């Protein structure tokens, strides 16, 4: 959910101006915001599954430190989505384990 009105920060002035594709689904986004922010705005909380036990993980630190939020972005695995800005048309997938390069092992 986006914060459109705020008592200190005022009203949101940015506009939805991009679309990213997450696991095949189109999600409206703001160019330049972190990918993780777009996902949370759409209610997506699970970003990846762990290698051995396939457990779900989402963001933890949101400042690029913990690597819990990594996903496969445009064919590149292990991209920290909390510090990687959205570009229109990005293709993103929930990362399984260590991920795959360009969709291949």
């Amino acid at each position, binding site marked *: 959910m986006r914060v459109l009105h*705020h008592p*200190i920060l005022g009203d949101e002035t940015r506009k939805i101006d991009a679309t990213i594709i997450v696991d095949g689904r189109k999600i409206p986004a703001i160019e330049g915001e972190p990918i993780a*922010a777009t996902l949370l705005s759409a209610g997506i909380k*699970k*970003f990846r599954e762990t290698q051995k036990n396939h457990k779900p*993980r989402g*963001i933890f630190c*949101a400042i690029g*430190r913990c690597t819990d939020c990594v996903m496969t972005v445009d064919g590149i695995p292990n991209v920290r989505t909390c*510090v990687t800005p959205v570009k229109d048309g990005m293709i993103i997938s929930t990362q399984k384990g260590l991920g795959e390069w360009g969709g291949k092992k």
Partner: protein
Amino acid sequence: MKTTDIAVIGAGPAGLSCAVEAAKSGARVTVLDENLKPGGQLFKQIHKFFGSREHRAGIRGFRIGQQLLEATERLDVQVLLDAAVYGIYEDRLIAYITDGRDHTIKAKKIVLATGASENALAFPGCTLPGVMGAGAAQTMINVNRVLPGKKIIMVGSGNVGLIVSYQLMQAGADVVALIEAAPKIGGYGVHAGKIRRAGVPIYTSTTIKEVLGEEKVEGVITASLDEKWQHIEDTEKRFEADTVCLAVGLSPLTELAWMAGCEFTFIPPLGGHVPIHDRNMESTLTGVYIAGDITGVEEASSAMEEGRLAGVACAESLGYYNEKQALALKNEIWDRLDALRTGPFGEGRFTAKLKQLEARRQLA
């Protein structure tokens, strides 16, 4: 290869204040930060700062950030963004990556102002999506304007836990409860009062027993603790929640200081292992200074003062200030730092910082 007088690593409140102070003396300053925007944790701090007027109390964190950025521009400080520093080599050679490529810069003085990162807490369900640092939630709501969830349980009643709870409400979330393992609230009474008045129950001597959910957080079970911090049977409470925020302290980000070869000391109230420094913020390596949360976790006001101190000291050792000029400036900063480290909350930090200086003296 690029060269500079002073390279500051980290563009948070400590690094930016350091850069501004050093640049005022005429020194050439380069700041490197791995983020795409400068400011570190400052732009998410939308609350008014405490302290006296000299500490810019009453001004909100993000405004202080804007002022610092304006000053860096006015003083021609070079700020390199998307510059993740990964190594410091002999003769103060710094290696960093920008846009996926390697770069180096050589500096006469280096200031490490890399900040801190949030601590985690272990309990069943602690890795479920929806369990996150309180600062992470703060980043999402105040910088990215996105709510991480609607019903929040906050763990930890220090100032970060109290402030972020209030900010989550300002952003439109419902803070279901704030729990604290200790018998008393950790942060300022003013902050606690604000969230209590807004209707958030605060449970002390309480911890998380379990977070429920398969794919994400769906609920939280808490339990009361006795004087020995053990669960008391039959005190479980169940809360509906989709987010658990952990405000259980920060640890200094010291990798670069370890790598460079700075000597450390262990002071738990400062966040654990911290690099040793002297009154000028110089580490045990000549020409390598430290400032802000990396020297021990405090808050933004003291980070800025430590940054200024390091800035003046670097400028002095490069000859941009004579001893007299530098001492006058440093005296003012030391006084302000002492003032920030008084009162029931500051005193512990004051004693801890004395220990850190004592460790330096023992080495010498």
